[in-house]
């Protein structure tokens, strides 16, 4: 399989001489699910911000489908990669439908708003996520978990080849986390590449996807979750002793 994302020797710093990413190399194959794991401050969100071109690297380069990130136009890039960030402050109360339709932006010429076909697409994906009852509500008046689902729906409506999520499950209840993992699997079946950050190694093990472990601004390990995630690794990156789980519940697939 070909690599859809290639990152070579990536370094980034917010303050002079304090490198958050330090010569990071990473290749992600197309049509895979990839979880980024790491302690707080290990550079997960910074890496994603570099990937979408918000952070300009100090050194190194990032390519998507063999083309440098900077060489894409904004709209071309958004068709290639959809990104959902960790937190967005919204003070203007767009309806959930209006908010999800923003995801159609890369496909709409300047001067045009969403047409009927875009509304139909929005309804389809909202149904898939079970949020059709929210469509008429204000995005500022729903719960954090519901809002998270709306963000995810917006990324689905964007229909990009690569979908990048920064902690997509942080505000979701156990049922919705499980639903999202199932959606990730479905998207992979449809040929999409998923990259997401998480703080929960158990979710990654349930999904048995690729795992990228970040430590000290570099990729510490990369591989299938079952072979990479070990008690020793978790103790090393989180600097805490770990025991085996007494009970572990998962939803039936």
């Amino acid at each position: 399989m070909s690599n859809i994302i290639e990152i070579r020797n990536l370094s980034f710093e917010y303050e002079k001489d304090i490198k958050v990413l330090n010569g990071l190399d990473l290749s992600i194959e197309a049509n895979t699910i990839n979880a980024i794991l790491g302690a707080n401050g290990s550079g997960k969100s910074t890496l994603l911000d570099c990937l979408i071109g918000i952070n300009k690297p100090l050194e190194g380069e990032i390519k998507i489908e063999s083309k440098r990130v900077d060489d894409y136009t904004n709209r071309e890039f958004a068709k290639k990669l959809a990104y959902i960030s960790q937190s967005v402050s919204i003070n203007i109360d767009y309806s959930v439908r209006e908010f999800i339709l923003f995801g159609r932006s890369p496909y709409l010429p300047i001067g045009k708003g969403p047409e009927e076909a875009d509304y139909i697409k929005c309804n389809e994906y909202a149904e898939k996520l079970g949020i059709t009852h929210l469509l008429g509500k204000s995005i500022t008046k729903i719960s954090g978990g519901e809002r998270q689902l709306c963000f995810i729906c917006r990324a689905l409506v964007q229909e990009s080849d690569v979908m990048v999520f920064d902690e997509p499950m942080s505000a979701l209840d156990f049922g919705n986390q499980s639903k999202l993992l199932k959606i990730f699997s479905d998207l992979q079946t449809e040929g999409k590449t998923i990259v997401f950050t998480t703080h929960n190694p158990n979710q990654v093990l349930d999904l048995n996807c690729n795992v990228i472990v970040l430590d000290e601004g570099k990729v510490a390990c990369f591989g299938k979750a079952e072979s990479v995630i070990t008690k020793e690794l978790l103790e090393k990156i989180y600097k805490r002793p770990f025991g085996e789980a007494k009970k572990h519940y998962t939803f039936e697939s």
Partner: protein
Amino acid sequence: MDKTYRKERLKFWLIIGGLALGLLLSFVLSMCVGRYAVSFGDTFRFFFGQRIDDVSFNVLFNLRLPRTLVAVCVGCSLALSGTIYQSIFNNKLVSPDILGVSSGASVGACFGILVGFSTGLVSLFAFVCGFITVLLTMLISKAFGNKSNLIIILCGLAVGGLMSSLVGLMKYLADNEMKLAEMTFWLLGDLSKTNLNDFWVILPVTAVGGAIALILSWRLNIVSLGRKESKAMGVNYNAMTIILIVVATILTAVSVSISGTIGWIGLVIPNLVRLIVGSDNKKVVPVSMLFGAVFLVLCDMLARSIAPNEIPLSVITGIIGTPLFLFSIFKRRKDLQ
């Protein structure tokens, strides 16, 4: 077929149609009402080029027509500029003066009045100073390495505060009673001195600014979510922000230079419009433009007809705008808790 899409579209066009009709009616009413009343019949004959008595013709052609046309453009421009600023700064409490344009223009106008410039030169000076003030705000925030809109807003507050102090200084220096009165009247908004030349100055600005805002209106929604979200959805945040701030600033600066500072329109109208059509700027931008025009035409009509002497416009817009603003707060009180 999507029912919501069709229902929303129908509602939008009904509102636009209703407001266009409202604008037409308020325009005609504004032509008729004033200290010298002109009948509807004479007003219609005037519009269709038929002969009417000389006094009515002079009142309509030289006084009310330019004044009402300018009121349409100023109302439209200020409401549009408020909508743009509120969206860019993701804050519904922002008014067009957020970057100091009105207070800067006030300094220019007061200086012009103080040194005895002609009315045209006062307007030009007001425009130049308004624009320079916004540039100053942007340059200072740039020097602070601004990464967030909050820094721009805070710099705007600081520069605006300085400009208000300079206005205070000009008023202090204006020992001549006439000049002080002229400054005070200008600072409260006044359309009584407008003529057709003012209309020909503001019309292209409103038309071009309005066209740009309408074209970019849907993308303005995405810009309101910030730099990162805009990038994620393929919108060039920097270019869009610069274009829209320049458009909103020019609209405000030209309006203020012609009519003086008129408060409330840029703050109240977009908030009221959001209560009616929702927050999608594709709808809010055109509806605000029409609503702002109707609002100012009616306020101006009241300003020159409810008392023997003309009442400054900001007094009227404040008296009407305050309850409307409180109403919009009341409707959204749950969001604010």
